[in-house]
């Protein structure tokens, strides 16, 4: 019998992409697969615990989760989009638009708030549908298509209330995010649930697995009979819907909807995904990785505040940490970029 025993060449470690058999080592393997970013996160957490007495308090940790939840929810959608080799620049503008739209429905049209929320969600998904249709049916580059919708969404968000902020949402709604379930804030739970659901979908469901195939080799996916265009469109719709959900969190947190909300979020959202090990050329990435990336950014921002770093220098430190995180991940990247 012929042997074609695959040999792993030493310079490109091939990691097993399917879960190993051992049950106990499963978690460990998974963490190891995440590579550099996890190491970076652990180093940061340990360093912070020494540097600031406030860091390892349960209140602070719950703050961190609460602080990253809006970006995190958007990053969940962005992970999917990046997995299929796309990009969604409109996500932050979509958040602002859906926030203003729901708020306007509620305050001006006097639609009941839950209905207004749902309509906002639908608008977010509609923007996603437009992005998806343009990129997968219209064959427009994702960057160009979502740049256009970003611009349009941002303009419309301002247009709806001529720049005004809307306040006075139902108190039960603003109270939601003030509640803490056993020291975990509600939006943190929402975040984790979203990550778990999408993570399981990506890992265990054909629909989720298909995203890896599409991002890795779209032609192969098409030739294998996957409904590539619809799968891609659906991903943009999910990303749009999640932007609206992040908008809910934002409104609840501050009891206000501002048209410039999320203005600085876009790069953060994408950065979180990329720091988490996803490749912008598609096919590589995971919810676990994005979650780690999210925690890195969250711990970093929190830590820089706690440590009273000069605000001007904070950005320099952030740059250095991002670099450190991805450089430790470089070997992994090399493999995955293949």
């Amino acid at each position, binding site marked *: *019998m*012929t*042997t*074609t*025993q*695959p*040999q*792993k*060449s*030493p310079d*490109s470690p*091939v*990691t*097993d*992409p*399917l*879960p190993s058999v051992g049950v106990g080592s499963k978690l460990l393997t998974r963490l190891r697969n995440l590579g550099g970013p996890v190491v970076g996160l652990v180093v940061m957490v340990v360093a912070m615990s020494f540097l600031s007495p406030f860091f390892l308090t349960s209140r602070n940790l719950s703050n961190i989760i609460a602080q990253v939840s809006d970006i995190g929810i958007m990053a969940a959608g962005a992970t999917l989009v990046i997995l299929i080799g796309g990009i969604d620049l409109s996500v932050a503008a979509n958040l602002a638009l859906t926030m203003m739209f729901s708020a306007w429905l509620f305050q001006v049209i006097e639609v009941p708030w839950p209905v207004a929320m749902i309509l906002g969600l639908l608008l977010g998904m509609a923007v996603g549908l437009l992005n998806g249709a343009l990129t997968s049916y219209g064959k427009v580059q994702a960057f160009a298509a979502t740049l256009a919708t970003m611009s349009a969404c941002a303009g419309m968000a301002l247009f709806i209330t001529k720049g005004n902020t809307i306040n006075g949402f139902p108190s039960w709604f603003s109270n939601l995010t003030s509640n803490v379930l056993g020291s975990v804030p509600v939006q943190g739970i929402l975040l984790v649930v979203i990550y778990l659901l999408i993570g399981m979908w990506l890992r*265990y*469901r*054909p629909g989720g*697995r*298909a995203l*890896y*195939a599409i*991002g*890795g*080799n779209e*032609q*192969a*996916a*098409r*030739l*294998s*009979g*996957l*409904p590539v265009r619809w799968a891609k469109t659906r991903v943009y719709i999910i990303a749009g819907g999640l932007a609206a959900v992040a908008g809910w969190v934002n409104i609840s947190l501050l009891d206000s909807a501002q048209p410039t909300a999320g203005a600085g979020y876009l790069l953060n959202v994408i950065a979180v995904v990329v720091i988490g090990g996803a490749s912008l050329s598609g*096919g*590589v990435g995971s919810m676990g990785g994005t979650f780690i990336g999210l925690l890195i950014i969250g711990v970093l921002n929190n830590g820089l505040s706690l440590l009273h770093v000069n605000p001007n220098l904070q950005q320099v430190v952030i740059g250095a940490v991002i670099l450190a995180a991805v450089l430790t991940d470089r070997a992994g990247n090399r*493999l*995955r970029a*293949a």
Partner: protein
Amino acid sequence: MSDDVPAPGPGGRALTGSALRKSYAGIEVVKGVDFAIPAGAVVGLIGENGAGKSTLSSMIAGVVLPTSGEMTLDGESYAPTSPSDALDRGVALIHQEIRMVPSLSVAENIFLGRLPVRGGKVDTGSMVRQSREVLDLLGIDLDPRRSVVGLSMAVQQSIEIAKAISRGPKYVIFDEPSASLTGHETDRVLDQIRRMAEHGVGVVYISHRLEEVRDVSSQIICLRDGALVKNWDRGNVPAPEMVSAMVGREFTFEHQAPEPHREDVVLEVRGLGRKGVFSGVDFTVSRGEILGVAGLVGAGRTEMVRTIAGADRYDEGEVLLEGRPVRLDSPAAAIAAGVVMVPEDRKGQGLNLGLSSAVNILQPWEREMGRGRFITNRLLNRAAAKSRADFDIRGSMDLPVVRLSGGNQQKVLLAKWLVHEPTVLILDEPTRGVDVGAKMAIYEIIRDCAARGVAVVVVSSELEEVLGLSHRVMVMSGGRQRGILPRADADAETVMQLAVPTGQQ
């Protein structure tokens, strides 16, 4: 022509087409073809490079839409608009160009598009089990859970075949499945095809290796310039008859390169190795000598020649060029030293598909051409015209190479490395996907090169090719050199004995 259409198979089931046409930008590449693929039959499809075989298969498999014409499947009308349409109807295509998803495991690649689900989850266990079963059928010993990254072309091709077979299709088209397989693996593939046919599957088998076509087919059709020119209702058609149908004329081959200048050693490799991949490679190639390298899939031949050509690093041993030790640590350094390599994977590593043939051919030489002047299209086209004539490349030199047929792309790739005469020419599977006529032309080119004094190393999975071309044959197995045979001693049996890994039955 319609009276040439073979009769439907047992039970009358067949996939048929009538007057199928396909044009690209007004140029008709398939010109009204009628065909029938009876269930349970193996239809060999032959034709020169660019004859339209892949285009015809793509239409059948829903990858491209016909410009006009009709198809029926088991008596019902059949007009697939996407590959998934075709797959739903039970028609599968093994594409000429291998397409794997690099981030997925072997098993997932095999089950791409139809992952088994149990309890709401992808059933990894059964997927791995079933994958292992089909891989075993094809004689591929491969862990289905590993990633496809780093697998050789041959293994990838086998996975493609496994993928199609495991779908249990009613009709399946193999578009050059054996192009990077050695005889050993090919035999297993052919076995599988026969078995499928026995189970009532209708198979189309496309290959430029006419022996295989003869071997497996129960009928053969031949395309020339997009038209169906010949239709045999038997498999054992003599090769010359097939060739003359394909080419439209008779032709002869066979001519040997003159004996090399043994005293002028050009390339000497001593104890070359890379950890975990290959080791202990020692050989010399003299001026005018052709050294063939044979071995089974995964023997480490590609890795070894890539190392010599500077594409990969090595951990041990040394390379001498005309007696002087050289450190070829990049392709650029190798090229500067006159060592060039034609890689086995023309799409991934050889060509820039979006650019024209002229640009591709002259890519490595632009720095030289551009010395003191602008590189204009005129300059490029003038320089490329010679390559075009020498290699008989069909198709405009301005067209992006992606639009040339596979064989013509291969010629472009060869032409690229022979613009300037190298000192050492390394060829890895030089005739992959090339038709008989072109193959002979390429052999001729290789021999001429040797005759002019170039030291040539040819890696090939086609035994006849290695045996026919080489002055000496080196055999590798399991990353080790098993021996170097002079031409007189090299026959299929001796080579195979050395090629099969020891300690394994």
